[in-house]
């Protein structure tokens, strides 16, 4: 087990570098530059910019400099937001996205596990259909539609909650709408995964054995079935959590939150190379660790898997 973990950890760094290199290539292939703007620059100014940022050097050399910086963990300054370093932007935006993401995921787990388990226990009943229909709401309506509708109802008609903006980690009123909007999507996934996982486990031999042993239905479900039925949810959780850090773009834009997702999309649209690469390096390492954590959790939950 330890050897397996070590092997996977060691490979993460080269893999992240491959990700960064490919992303760099994509940024270079995309038309336009970070300094392209409405007003055409005079050739002299453009030349000054290219010199300052080393864009006049041979491409290979630029690539090596970039990789060298990334390896040393020196992501540099954002090209567009020159006053801010990439590390600083990460430090500031990640906690915001993480707060919203984790709260949303917890809420989604609560909704998803409950509806999913109930649906599986009463398969093909109206409870099953009803709860699955509710769960699927999040997977059938884009979140840029759900969010504004919630804002319309709770902020602009009822004046209960602020319509947007970040108000610190304790500004709970500002957190409610974005967290609920985001949770709805994940609740849908989790509910469906839980239902599918539970259905499979409930029919398996060891549950039948447990029932045969005369265990109460409660014990069967909570002690045995849930543990096995959670497997798909666990495998979903790793990538989902990593994705939540980078993937809350729509929520961050609609609610004007200073999180990583919006910064990342903007950096792509701005061709802000250092910022893009910094975020990609960070997020890719995170995703790979998340995947590793999933594999470890798998081994813990399922005694049949051994590394």
């Amino acid at each position, binding site marked *: 087990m330890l050897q397996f973990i070590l092997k996977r950890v060691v490979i993460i760094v080269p893999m992240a570098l491959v990700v960064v290199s490919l992303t760099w290539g994509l940024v270079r292939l995309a038309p336009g530059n970070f300094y392209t703007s409405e007003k055409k620059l005079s050739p002299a*100014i453009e030349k000054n910019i290219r010199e*300052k940022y080393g864009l006049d050097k041979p491409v290979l050399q630029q690539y090596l400099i970039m990789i060298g910086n990334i390896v040393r963990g020196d992501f540099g300054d954002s090209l567009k937001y*020159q006053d801010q370093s990439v590390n600083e*932007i990460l430090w500031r935006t990640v906690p915001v996205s993480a707060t919203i993401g984790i709260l949303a995921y917890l809420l989604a787990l609560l909704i998803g596990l409950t509806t999913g388990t109930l649906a599986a226990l009463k398969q093909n009943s109206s409870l099953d259909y009803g709860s699955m229909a509710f769960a699927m709401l999040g997977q059938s309506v884009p979140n840029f539609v759900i969010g504004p509708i919630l804002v319309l109802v709770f902020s602009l008609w009822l004046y209960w909650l602020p319509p947007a903006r970040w108000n610190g980690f304790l500004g709970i009123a500002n957190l409610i709408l974005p967290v609920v909007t985001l949770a709805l999507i994940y609740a849908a996934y989790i509910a469906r995964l839980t239902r599918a996982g539970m259905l499979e486990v409930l029919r398996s031999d060891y549950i039948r054995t447990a029932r045969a042993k005369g265990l109460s239905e409660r014990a069967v479900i909570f002690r045995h079935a849930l543990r096995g039925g959670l497997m798909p949810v666990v495998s979903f959780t790793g990538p989902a959590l990593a994705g939540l850090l980078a993937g809350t773009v729509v929520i961050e834009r609609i609610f004007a939150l200073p999180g990583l997702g919006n910064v990342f999309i903007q950096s792509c*649209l701005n061709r802000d190379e250092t910022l893009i690469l910094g975020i990609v390096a960070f997020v890719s390492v995170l995703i790979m660790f998340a995947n590793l954590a999933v594999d470890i959790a798998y081994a813990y939950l399922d005694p049949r898997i051994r590394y």
Partner: protein
Amino acid sequence: MKRHCFNNVRLGLAIIALSVFAVGCRTSANSRYFGETVPPTRNILRYVTGPEPESLDPQIPDGQPEARIFLALYEGLVEYDPKDLHPVPAIAESWEISRKIDEFVFHLRKDAKWSDGKPITASDFVYSFRRGFAPETVSRTAELGYFIKYAKAFNAKSVFVKKNNQFLLAKDFAPATEAKTNEPENNKSPENEQAVSSSAIAETEFHQFIKSPDRLVVSGDEKERAKAVEVNPALKTALEDSEFVPVKGEDIGVEAIDDYTLRITLRQSAPFFLGLLAHQFFRPVPQQAIEKYGKAWTRPENIVTSGAFKVKEHKPYDVLKVEKNPNYWDAQNVKLDEIDFYSVEEQTTILNLYKAGSIDAFSNHMIPASWVDEMRPFKDEYLNFPEIFTQYYSMNMKKPPFDNLKVRQAFNLSIDKVALAEFRKTQKPLYDLSPPSISSEYEKARSAVSEELRLKSNTSPEEWANRNHFNPERARQLLAEAGFAVQQNNNAYTCPSFPADKIALSYNTFESNRLVAEFVQAQWKQNLGVIVPLKNMEFKTFLPMKNAVDYDGLALTLWSADYLDPYTFLGLQYGISNNGGSGYYDPKYDRMLDEANSELNPQTRYEKLARAEAYAMNQQPFIPLTVGSTNWMKKPYVKGLYPNPGTLHSWKYVYIERDPSKWDSNVENIMK
């Protein structure tokens, strides 16, 4: 089973119906103000200026959202008048302008201080200008200051040429055609001219240098120089066995005569230069902080400002809080204690914040066209005033079919711009290069020139007035003359010979751009029978393509004035590599503009500019569409915030009125 699932569907439908009903009710409800209208408890203004500012260094960003922030943080030699943006005294108390309008002497106020208490002197301006043009600063707005003598040479790392210990002069090597453009006829003996009417100012060594005839400036790069020789063989002798002396910051035409007197020398007459000086690029930056902290000088803990406000807190992508600067010379007249600039990008989110009373005002163009009719009734809050912001479609004149003047004219005449403006709701039709809102004097000059041209062309006043207006009949005729006959079959037109599938109308992704494009596309379809494909592109993909005139057909050009002078628009077509996006270049037009700009009498200058504009419009380098209007809102308790044509606010005049009887009622009155 069946019953249950249909119950669910029915429930869903009920919810939808309910929400439709609720939405319907809400919109029909009518009240005087839009949403929550309660003044904040402190003297604070909460404002949305757009996306996160690129930098707090005024010499770096080129956008409007940042410009508004810099108006709070930094004060220039001159400031924008809060209502009409003409330059008014600020750190410069008074000034004198040379008769040729190529030299300015500013007398600075003696009580101006930085936010750290240090006095602001002329040498601060000299430092700031030199820093702005320094190649290492990589300022993208430096081009605005190229009128200052040798500023361009310094910025471009060019060199002077020294031979036999003497600097060579530009006039000895100018190619025949360029001589005319660079040195207008009425500019024969600059040496004899008295620089500035005030005789009290002592002559300095620097001034003698800067007023001496222009030195020859060539590129600092050898390859570039070789290219220049190819174009202008006269240079060959100049460059052989010569010494090249780099142009330094000390060589540009900016001089501190004493602590409170600043002299700026230009390379040519530029009557609009004073207005340009209010631009953020020319605002002073703190030498003491920049030298101490280097790159980190803009951090809230290090930054030193010269304006009415200083930085209190900066949470990027969220909020920039600025507070009253007690060291500001006019601090007793600054009414706000704090301004919070929020960074928000989504239009709907901004409107939501405004409606919920979380913000007090927001910047221009933030209300989607579909909302305008909804907002208009809020007469105390909705500000829709003329603006210096224009929309054109550039046409690629280097490629068929738009290399043909008649095709360009046909596409222009087949757009009903009145209907377009009506459809956009906040815009007015545009028929010329520059909008009418720029100055009434220019408007007068333009109509005088127009009348003169009419008499020459022997047309009736009516016909003349409508020559550029919607005329589908004439458009079809022109298109036919260009070789693309328009056929008519039962009320619909077709133009099978026109290569519509080879061209496209390109624009960058933005909802309003799309709406205009779809509208114009429909007009061409209905009036010419030509279906031009639309092509929207991500911004950074679109710009390089348009700037390089590397597209087929038409592309959108949006332009907002850098200063209040028609030249900011007419200059769009000036020079071989211009911002017009059509690939238009006509040396005669350039010459006309140069001549106009060296004209000393402002009225005559306007006339010459108007003549140049009419000349260019005859070649239809692009299709003028509309001129924008401000289109923003403020709560009625926010006073002193005026809908000026650039939405550039002088924050020091803004205050929060707590007495509802003194609130603004009907914003039409506040500009009076």
